């Protein structure tokens, strides 16, 4: 199985954000800052744990830039998957 591309990772995140936090997909876009869509650091941690469960991977590197965007989270997941591949 290949590494999911960024679009697939984004779709996974959007599905989870909609289901868990009622954050609509048209709000949860790559440029959206996490804090602007209502996500605090613990919620981001929850998102990471969900990604781990859904993709069956362990995210070793969970470093995000300050004032991160959803696109930064997508990049983080992809970065971890590439290291593992």
């Amino acid at each position: 199985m290949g590494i999911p591309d960024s679009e697939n990772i984004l779709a996974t995140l959007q599905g989870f954000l909609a289901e868990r936090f009622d954050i609509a997909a048209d709000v949860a876009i790559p440029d959206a800052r996490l804090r602007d869509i209502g996500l605090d650091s613990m919620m981001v941690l929850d998102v990471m744990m969900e990604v781990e469960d859904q993709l069956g991977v362990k995210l070793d590197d969970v470093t995000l830039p300050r004032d991160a965007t959803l696109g930064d989270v997508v990049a983080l997941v992809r970065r971890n998957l590439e290291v593992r591949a």
Partner: protein
Amino acid sequence: MAGHARDVVITGIGILSPVGLNVTEFRQSLLSNRSGIQLWESPQLSRRIPAGVIGKDFSSEFSKLELPYMDRCSQIAMLAARQAMADAGIEQFADHAQRAGLYYGSVGGGVKTEHDWVRQFHVDHVEGAKPYTIMASMLNAAPALISIKHKILGPVITNSSACSSSGAAIGEASRAIRDGYLDLALAGGAEAALTPTFVALWSGLRALAEADPNDVSRSCRPFSLDRTGLVLSEGAVFLMLESRAHAEKRGVAAYCRLSGYGIASDGYHIGTPHSQGQAAALRAVLADAGLRPDQVSYYNAHATATRGGDPVESAAVREVFADATDQLPVSSTKGIHGHLLGGASAIELAACVLAIEGSFLPATAHLDAVDPECALRHVANRPWLDTPVEHAVSLSAGFGGTNVALAVSKEHELRTKNIAGDVSTIT
């Protein structure tokens, strides 16, 4: 006696309870003596127990971004706090900076959250909780969330002295206002602990009431010869306390004055109450309020309907009120709402406030044959209507031995307000 500017008045009440989801409904239940006690069961427990259940889920009141942090206890506390604020005409506290506080009492805090997590750990073998779980289960989660939402920037303090928790919260808040540290405070308590583990914990004590075989709503019978124990309940109650000067400045009316606070500990046993400690709290509240025993118009008892507890409190009342005992009307409203634990003192003080507001004495429900060891002047089965109340006292006694007594008195300086309610419809 002329009022003092720093006297504490009560300008708002919020209640979510098994006998009403707001103060008006609660008042109607006191007047009709309607019990909110019903059968509670769990697939994990073989025994069904009577409990004071709020048969409603409140999660739809909050967004999904708020809910991860909100145990049911925090949900009902938040809603009761909002009611009290709305009743007092306060939208937020930010402008009060450190002059506004929140004093809260609870026994278990986020009990359901903790129960669910422990189950995940032991049954599902989950080794790491969700990031929010620790915060949602904290004893001080509810006041923290309320303070964040409504910008209460002064002291936000959680008291836990078992069944007197919210009494201590209210008392300490009133002292902070009276001593000049605060202008206003939300004070009260909450409990939402009807989970199999918590109920089974209590069952170990053999102090829970049996379900009445004919009518479960009659299962909690304080002072009664045939009482079988206490009934666990859930609920949240907040009062808005403020200095008279502050209420006057805001141009708002008050229900009454919070006129006294007495706190005393038994120093005796962790699970057995002692009349000496209770009597000391009662003497302290009378002294604090400047009242003689014969001036108290109504006494709301802690009386949980246990075999051991009710006679101890009765003895304390007789000791303190002495010759005035025979004239002192007494009731325990737990017969209809059960034991709210962390919310117990607060709901019972609310009953006293409404007694003053509506000139009636709430009754002890299901009191057909009084235990001779609990001989007092009981308001039994029906409230006494058209009975002016100048001063009311409520006692709460917690496991561990912390006893809290609070007094409320008719307010004669500020405008007073009433709750719309039709007393004449009550039988």
